[in-house]
Each structure stands twice: as structure tokens, then as C-alpha cells.
């Protein structure tokens, strides 16, 4: 079992979906700093994805500073106490874009959308 939840959907590349799922788990606290992160092998087996893809996911997370390799343990999650604002905003950017598009199709102005968001 993996310590984060991901339902792979068709359409977007698998590695993007996993990156998003992992980042979400880290931002919501489903995974915390110091937690061990699954190996390339178990990522690949659990998600039935190519080891190359699994490896790429681990490298990208490492490059982005979410993972650290600990000798003897493997990969360990490292999370800044409070993730950067830009990082958290990036998480909701796709949804925001979709919302804006939908709003444009419905002929809503940005201010109307903002007022509505505030009222929720």
C-alpha cells in the first residue's frame, strides 16, 4: 500500500498525476516530514507503472526538495514547516483556471466570481 492516495486517470501523463497526488498528501498532512517514502520498486508495483516513470517521479520530488535520501532507510519525506505560498497556490492553479474558463463561458465577471467565492 502507498502512503498517499492516487487514482490514476487516463489523459494526463502518469508521472504528473503522481507528483500532484504526492504534493497534495504532503500539503494536507497525509504524509509528514520524516516519513519513509516508497521505493521506485514499490511505486512501480503498486501503481503498475514502468520503473522508468517511478524513478522519474522520485527524482522530480527529490529535485523539488520534497525527498531526501537517508542511507539505510531510503527516501524520506522532507517538508518545509509551512510550504511556500507559491507552492500551495500552484496546487490549486488548474482548478482556478477551469473555474475562470467556466465563469467566462457563463459571462460572469471576475468580481462576481470573487464575491461568490467569498460568500461560500
Amino acid at each position: 500500500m502507498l502512503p498517499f492516495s492516487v487514482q490514476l486517470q487516463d489523459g494526463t501523463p502518469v508521472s504528473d498525476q503522481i507528483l500532484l497526488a504526492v504534493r497534495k498528501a504532503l500539503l494536507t498532512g497525509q504524509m509528514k516530514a520524516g516519513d519513509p517514502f516508497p521505493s521506485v520498486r514499490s511505486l512501480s508495483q503498486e501503481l503498475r507503472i514502468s520503473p522508468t516513470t517511478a524513478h522519474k517521479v522520485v527524482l522530480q520530488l527529490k529535485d523539488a526538495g520534497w525527498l531526501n535520501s537517508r542511507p539505510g532507510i531510503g527516501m524520506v519525506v522532507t517538508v518545509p514547516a509551512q510550504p511556500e505560498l507559491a507552492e500551495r497556490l500552484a496546487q490549486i492553479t488548474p482548478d482556478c483556471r477551469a473555474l475562470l474558463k467556466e465563469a467566462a463561458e457563463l459571462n460572469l465577471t471576475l468580481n462576481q466570481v470573487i464575491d461568490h467565492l467569498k460568500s461560500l
Partner: protein
Amino acid sequence: MIRIENLHKRFRRTEAVAGLSLNVPEGQVTAFLGPNGAGKSTTIKCLLNLQRPDQGCATVLGTDSRQLGPAQFTQLGYVSENMELPLWMTVKQFLDYCRPLYPRWDTAFERHLLAQFDLPLATKLKDLSRGMRMKAALLSSLAYRPKLVVLDEPFSGLDPLVRDEFIRGLLELTEQEGWTVFVSSHDIEEVQRLADRIAIINRGKLALDETSESLQARFRAVQIVLPDGADLPAELPIDWLHAEQAGRTLRFIASRHQNEAQLAAALRETLTATSTPDIRPMSLREIFIALARAYRLEGQ
């Protein structure tokens, strides 16, 4: 790991493989796709020296396929949907028979796979279900930790659970350095998550060879509402596939997508359309179907 150059193979009147060239890089999973009868199995049989090419050649694990011997076969795992197995043997007898053929046979790994595949040792291969038999064949081809695994339509006729077990078993080998898989299928659905690369064969020739990632990056399903009274130009850009108009809506598949700005510019130029297009990424399956349709149109 595999290098195919200008391969030809003819059976009486049909040219099954008609000048196929393809490189299968090490350390990746390459899916070899094509409609039934496109030449996949014949190609694979040539690779394994089960068929002799009429022309051209194939190099497998650095050796000409016609010279493959024990040194290569002990590093090569092969499972095919219609491979011949000693059906009169029990699973245990079958494994006892295979074990001494491979110096690098890993008995611990064999036991691990046996447990994972839930194979009954005392049952004869002929009495196993098709799925069980395929799992037995896979086990016998993985237990010696081959460098190259060649699978010919391994999933056809397998139920989803067995297919899933089969893929998981295959992925047991992933720790291995440079582990390479070449898997043929007529249905991309079976391999779309697994494949790093997609090679498509059509009428015996290579039609496409690309990473899954770049395929998904360049294909988009596009839908746009046309302005009032707009007529479609007679010629649409050639990279717009399968354009269809229904009322005021135009749908097509952009096959050379770069970014939304570039697509929006092309839409303005071609259609004088100013409404916001709906641009959606596509699954590998949808892309494969769009390509297969395009190949069929080309052939007509």
C-alpha cells in the same frame, strides 16, 4: 537491446513485415502496437530466430538473431499467447525441467513468484486455465532474471485480475539494472500505463516510435464554436486529424500541439474563430485510436 533493420518477411502472397526498422532501447518498457495482422508476431518470431527474415536483419542482445544461442537465451525471457508448453507436465515438473537450463535461475525468486501467482504445483499445465498457464509461462521466463523480456500479446484473453497479477509479476524484476521489456499488443489499454515508449507497426512498416510522454504532449482534442455564418475552409491544416462539424461546433484532434497560444493563433487564422476553444489532453488509448483511423484512411 533490440535493433531491427529493414526487416522483410513474406508468407506466400502476403508481405507480413515490409521493411521494418526499429530500435528498442535498454532500460525501458517499449509497447509494440498495431492492429491484428500488422506484422507484430512475425517480427517477434524473427527476433527470436523462430522465423528467418527474407531480407534485413535484427540484432538482439548484441547478436544477430540468426545466431542466437544459449548465451543469449539465458538472458532472454519470452512469453507468447500461443507458445508451445509441455502440457503433459505438472507445474512442478515444468519448473524442474526449466531450472537446470538456466545457470542464473533464482530459486528464491521462483518461490516468491509462485506464491504471488498462486499456482498449483501438482496440476498439469493442460488442466490450468488460460490465465494460470500464462502465469506459469511468465514465471518460467522471469525466474532466471533475464535482461530482456519479450512478450507477444501476453494479455489477450486474460481476465482483468490475472492481467493485473501478470503485470505485477513482470514488475518484480524492476530492481534489475538495465531491465528491458518489449511487449506487443493490439490493444493499447493493456499497456498504456506501463509503456515508456510506443512503437506502432502498420502494414509491416514502422508507423510511429515515440515516448508516451511526447505523444501525450503533442495530441489534444479540440472543440470550438464557430462564428455565425462561418464556412470551413476546404483545406484544414494537415496536423488537424478527423475534423468533424456538428451544427456550429467543430471538433478535431490536434496532432502537433505545442501550446494554447499557438493553437489559438492557428484557429484564428484558419477559421476566423474568436471564441475560446475547449482543449483537452487525450489518453494514450484515444491517441492510438485516432492514429489507427488515420492509418486506415491513408491506406484507402
